[in-house]
């Protein structure tokens, strides 16, 4: 099922023409209305008219989160403030948060792209969508809400947390689609099992999960426990919220809605554009946004772009699952490590629950990693000797994966904190 066949299955040549036209328009509008961008374009003596091909965008400077912080709150708006009808902010752990501003038209675009995403998960107007993303300033809840609204499905706005409610409603109302973070989905399966609920009897057929990084293994785990197809949604507040890209049932990458968001991949070290298929940092440019256009925004997410034909029929470029962030990246004893690599290694081993935490310390001038992993109930009640074997196995597997010795500690099931939103996987205790 495809929401917008015209846009999603457009011939590539035609789409490139559309993208170019939109790119020219947005650069002109941005130059004329956002003093911040005008200044930066003038600095490199760039005029919007100089864009003759899509690649010409490489001439332009990048926008980073720091720029957004400096422009807080209204500095990057391209329309008079009264045209902005909604704002969302992203958590400001360091300093001021950042704002995303939407005009009425932007809200419609948002609804459109999320509608595409939900449809890709199999949602139609006859479905019941149980929304477990947080509602409020976080874009997850309202974003999915707008998309579901657009499709005409029944939306149950539960928001994050309230596990008992989630389980009750799933059973009482026969929800067919679940939207929430993957770690929360996993938590719900645990809670359901504990409550003695027969998950097979639930009517859930698909899950639209995102807002945090998760592996294929994690996906397999969720699908196995929840008996549904678990697909990945991608987005970020600075660009629009959820709805920038969505995985289709081919499970082979996420289709970026590139008629609205122009993607590039650059090397996080040199910032040079990378060819198709090579992993690097995702950079996005909004092509249609009114309220707050973003030009070459560095997402900090690591991925690769692929243009091979997808069996689903969509011609939109695909991006790999996000396997890490440039700032997720840990440097341990000089070696670059992504939590993703550790998760992948862990989940290959039997008897291990997909609940783990990575603790990085520097006790004697040398970095140490400890990976705490929950064992399954069965394994935990096993002989100490057997536990020790498993522990060593995990240590070896991880060492093979990242090239570093780590200490693995097995912990009792259910002792690691569970999240209702994004799971906090890494605790870095080094005072860097």
């Amino acid at each position: 099922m495809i929401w917008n066949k015209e846009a999603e299955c457009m011939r590539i040549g035609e789409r490139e023409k559309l993208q170019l036209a939109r790119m020219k328009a947005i650069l002109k509008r941005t130059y004329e209305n956002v003093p911040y961008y005008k200044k930066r374009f003038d600095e490199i003596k760039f005029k919007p008219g100089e864009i003759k091909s899509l690649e010409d965008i490489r001439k332009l400077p990048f926008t980073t989160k720091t720029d957004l912080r400096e422009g807080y709150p209204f500095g990057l708006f391209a329309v008079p403030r009264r045209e902005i009808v909604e704002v969302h902010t992203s958590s400001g752990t360091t300093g001021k948060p950042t704002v995303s501003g939407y005009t009425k038209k932007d809200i419609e675009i948002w609804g459109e792209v999320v509608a595409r995403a939900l449809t890709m998960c199999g949602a139609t107007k006859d479905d019941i969508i149980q929304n477990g993303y947080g509602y409020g300033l976080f874009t997850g809840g309202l974003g999915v809400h707008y998309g579901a609204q657009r499709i005409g499905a029944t939306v149950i706005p539960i928001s994050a947390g309230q596990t008992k409610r989630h389980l009750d409603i799933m059973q009482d109302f026969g929800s067919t689609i679940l939207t929430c973070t993957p770690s929360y989905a996993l938590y719900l399966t645990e809670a359901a099992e504990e409550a003695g609920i027969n998950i097979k009897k639930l009517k859930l057929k698909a899950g639209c999960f995102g807002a945090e990084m998760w592996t294929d293994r994690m996906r397999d785990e969720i699908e196995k426990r929840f008996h549904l197809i678990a697909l990945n949604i991608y987005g970020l507040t600075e660009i629009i919220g959820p709805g920038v890209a969505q995985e289709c049932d081919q499970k082979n990458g996420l289709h970026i809605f590139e008629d609205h968001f122009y993607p590039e991949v650059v090397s996080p070290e040199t910032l040079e554009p990378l060819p198709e298929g090579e992993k690097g940092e995702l950079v996005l440019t909004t092509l249609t946004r009114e309220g707050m256009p973003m030009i070459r925004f560095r997402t900090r997410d690591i991925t690769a772009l692929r243009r091979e034909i997808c069996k689903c029929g969509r011609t939109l470029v695909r991006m790999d699952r996000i396997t890490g962030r440039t700032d997720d990246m840990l440097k341990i004893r000089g070696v670059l490590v992504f939590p993703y690599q550790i998760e992948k290694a862990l989940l290959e081993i039997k008897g291990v629950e997909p609940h783990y935490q990575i603790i990085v310390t520097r006790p004697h001038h040398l970095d140490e990693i400890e990976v705490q992993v929950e064992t399954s109930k069965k394994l935990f009640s096993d002989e100490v000797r057997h536990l020790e074997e498993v522990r060593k196995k995990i240590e070896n597997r991880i060492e093979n994966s990242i090239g570093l010795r780590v200490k693995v500690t097995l912990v009792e099931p259910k002792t690691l904190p569970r999240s209702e939103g994004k799971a906090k996987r890494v605790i870095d205790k080094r005072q860097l």
Partner: protein
Amino acid sequence: MFWQKDIETISRKALEALQLKRLKQTVRQAWTNVPFYRDYFSKLSIKPKDITSLKAMQKLPLTTREDLRLNYPFGMLAVTKEQVVRLHTSSGTTGKPKAIFFSKKDVDRAADLIARCLIMTGVKKDDVLQNMMTYGLFTGALVMHYGAEKVGVLVIPAGPGNTKRQIALMQDFKTTTLHLTPSYALYLASVMHNEGLDPKKDFFLRRAYLGSEPYSEETRNKIEKFFGIDVYNSYGLSEMNGPGVAFECMEKDGMHLWEDNFIMEIIDPETGDKLPEGEKGELVLTTLCREAMPILRYRTRDIAMIIPGKCKCGRTHRRISRIIGRSDDMIIIRGVNIFPQQIERVLMGIKAVAQNYQIVLEAYDQMTVRVEISKDLFDGRVEHLVNLQNEITEKLRSEILVKPKVELLEPGTLPVSEGKSTRVIDKRTL
């Protein structure tokens, strides 16, 4: 300023004719599509065609929250599931909540009613609304959000809590309009006061809508004075869309109830007899435009009166007074409806506690549940008691959605009680 001037100032005669027309449609729709109503009608031997005048409404049965509970989840639905676009829920006395269904038209109408309320209180397109009610299954935040969207103001979907951030948002975005509970407004005022902030000087606030909890005229004056704004009373209930059922206009002399969308009656809560204008009683509401879930003569359990006479603003929809109390034992804290029965049920499921408990409400939003422990199950271990305390707190929180303080008491401390008056001690001065 009017959002829908014609209907807001329609003549009484035309309004009543419109009400009758819509009532007939609603009754027919309920009778045709909702088995619960059909059964009820046949039990009372009435048919839709018997409703020939507004007076004939008296023949119709009263619907209670018990009926909604017994028909959970889909029993009150009047359209197909596919036509439902939104589900909201509201606390029920037992484990299950009440389900409220909306069709696309229902959502649109609810938004229109809110838009009337916003425009009525001077809101313009360039206003900034900070929506500090809880987003999610409660109707409070989302329905206001839909209405504000219609008007085109800037909505900050802040939700409640994180007061420091709320204050920062108000300053950064130059918020003009607040939507929050009275208890949170008082709390916000105290935090601002402690920080040395003067909203009259440092902020851009013009008005606030207070709802979800009953509060006094004194509290309104206090808030108006501290913030330097106009405070307008807002009334609604999830079963009737949520906020936007009745709202104060700039005269601040009673809340206009949108009579083209609801028929209101005041009844004696004991006898069920209809009471005249000016007399206090229980508010009963009938939906006139709802598609997905029409409700006839719903007992709100809120005590109020219809204010006789015309309002200076020119609107012909009559006004109701502030909500004076409840005719049941429901309590509201932090804007959340809680029934003592819910607490009782949770406690009954925990072995180590006896049957006797008390709920104490104080300050703006403090709830303490005092529970007597079971004599026989006391084993002398402090740790076990602490665990018990935590277990009770967590189970209650999961059920009532508000985290209470739990006090463990010796058996025999509390008076043996029958009713709400001894079970619930409300020390708040809202």
